[in-house]
């Protein structure tokens, strides 16, 4: 039986001829200085773009993670706002039962007020807490129940632990002279570090004093699970179980604008830095167009051998894909390694005291890398397709006449 009559056999894997041709073109491209230069520009551009993208996303992740942690540390995990403050006791009992063991439930009141000093005052947010000073307010000394002021405000007024402090609330007291602000005197128990990200001033007072100043209207239950995901799940459960008795909000709703802004910032950064990858990919169009132009006659000859247009396109698509993958791998490795080193050696320092952090942390997230790979390959393949299409548009006879 001649070779020509052999039946088709199931074959072991071998590279199709299109891949073989693409690899040869890649290898032989080195002989043509200008083609090599364009290939290097395309590959290098993609590598540079990918590295910049990975690094920018890692820096953003690090900063956002620190910011998020800081904000969430100072935010209630779950808040249950009773519709009827009078029924808070019963509600608290139900919340404790639904939350289960190991979950802390505290009452809290919040409202606006003033610190009143001789000759003036300053607007503050009043937090009335139950039990010890909440962990969200890192105290510099004791955490025992009492009135605490931010160290910044205490310094401003020259107050120290044991000094008397006068607090007024926006809830008025009806007097024979009409409504007047409700004012209480209390002794300062200590100070807490002023939260870096907080603009306004804060005073933390024991729950009884808080209720006295603000009334029952702003009473809420603050639930701490110790886990952000657990808090969301518990929030959903409480919402379901408590129905119309209370409004349940979790850290997610409480910080929705911030979380949205962080997500948006990351997306915009991704788009902006991805433009570098796009420029590198566009260089693929010129590179492949030049290779197609240089190989016109060969493409025509392949056409006379029965190579179809789509197969010829695949050759150049593979060539573009190989160059893009090379750039992707180099850029990806460069970005990840740089991110690890910059993070480990705290190479990007921030001016102390001005920011939340003293250095920029770099955190590479696997999902980011997946998106970088998908979008880079997709962009590079679209650009390669444009360049490769010139090969299919070439009629064999035109190629042979050239």
């Amino acid at each position, binding site marked *: 039986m001649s070779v*020509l009559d052999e039946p088709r*056999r199931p074959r072991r894997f071998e590279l199709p001829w299109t891949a073989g041709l693409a690899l040869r073109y890649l290898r032989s491209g080195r002989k043509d200085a200008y083609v090599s230069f364009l290939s290097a520009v395309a590959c290098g551009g993609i590598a540079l773009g990918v590295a910049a993208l990975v690094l920018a996303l890692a820096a953003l992740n690090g900063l956002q993670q620190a910011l998020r942690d800081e904000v969430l540390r100072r935010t209630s995990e779950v808040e249950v706002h009773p519709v009827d403050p009078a029924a808070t006791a019963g509600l608290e009992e139900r919340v404790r039962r639904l939350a289960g063991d190991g979950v802390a439930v505290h009452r809290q009141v919040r409202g606006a007020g003033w610190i009143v000093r001789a000759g003036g005052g300053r607007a503050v947010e009043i937090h009335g807490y139950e039990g010890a000073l909440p962990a969200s307010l890192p105290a510099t000394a004791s955490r025992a129940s009492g009135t605490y002021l931010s160290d910044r405000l205490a310094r401003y007024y020259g107050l120290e632990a044991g000094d008397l402090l006068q607090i007024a609330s926006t809830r008025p007291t009806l007097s024979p002279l009409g409504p007047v602000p409700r004012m209480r005197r209390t002794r300062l128990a200590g100070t807490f570090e002023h939260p870096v990200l907080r603009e306004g001033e804060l005073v933390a007072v024991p729950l009884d004093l808080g209720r006295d100043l603000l009334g029952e209207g702003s009473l809420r239950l603050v639930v701490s699970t110790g886990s952000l995901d657990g808090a969301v799940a518990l929030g959903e459960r409480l919402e379901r179980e408590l129905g119309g008795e209370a409004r349940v909000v979790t850290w997610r709703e409480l910080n929705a604008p911030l979380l949205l802004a962080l997500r948006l910032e990351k997306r915009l950064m991704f788009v902006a830095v991805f433009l570098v990858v796009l420029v590198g990919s566009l260089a693929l169009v010129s590179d492949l167009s030049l290779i197609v132009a240089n190989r016109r006659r060969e493409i025509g000859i392949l056409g006379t051998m*029965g190579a*179809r247009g789509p*197969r010829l396109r695949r050759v150049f698509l593979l060539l573009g894909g190989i160059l893009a993958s090379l750039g992707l791998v180099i850029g990806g490795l460069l970005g990840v390694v740089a991110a690890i080193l910059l993070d480990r050696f705290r190479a990007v320092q921030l001016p102390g005291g001005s920011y939340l952090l003293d250095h920029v942390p770099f955190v590479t997230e696997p999902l980011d890398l997946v998106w970088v790979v998908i979008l880079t390959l997709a962009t590079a393949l679209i650009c390669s397709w444009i360049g490769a299409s010139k090969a299919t548009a070439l009629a064999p*006879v035109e190629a042979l006449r050239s």
Partner: protein
Amino acid sequence: MSVAVRARGLDKAYRDGEARVEVLRGLDLDVGPGEIVAVVGPSGSGKSTLLHLLGALDRPDGGEIAIDGTDVGRLPADALADFRRRYLGFVFQFHELLPDFTAVENVMMPGRIAGWDRARANRRAAALLAEAGLEARSDHYPNELSGGERQRVALCRALCLEPPLLLADEPTGNLDPASGERMFGLLLDLRRRHGTTALVATHNMAIAAACERVLRLDHGRLEPADGIEPS
């Protein structure tokens, strides 16, 4: 396997700026199965154009071409590549070998394009190169071969899939007389052994005379060539 070629009333013209150059004018051609026919004529007479039309590389402005009974002009564009692969082998004036592939890889290429695995295409290519006396040169790249060797490799490549019709456009036009003679001798030998119908465009009268029939392309039409006695 061989096929008959039939062309009727072929017209083909090109635009040269404002001017319209009529290359073929109502050309008729009949080639019998297994026959080898030479087409002679001066440069620019339309020999290559005729071969391009017969090879389904270009479409005529008018007329019909039937190869093995298939009306080539009616084939849709995407079927032309398959048709060329199944029916046609091309040899050009310049070898047109792929410079990045060795001789054996060049000969394997039509088989690979047809979907053969490497081993099968390699066996076929090695056998053809052996027939052409090029076994020792099979792993050389085109730039390491002489002009005659390159053209013989190109002929082997054209015959890889044993096409029923071989179209050779000035196959010895770029070779010295001795290499040209050897190359054409090989073409005749391989064509005879494989029973291929062949159409050879040439202006080498000695080569034309070695064919079974000689036609002259003149003013866009074919006519028997006077004064050239086929062998």
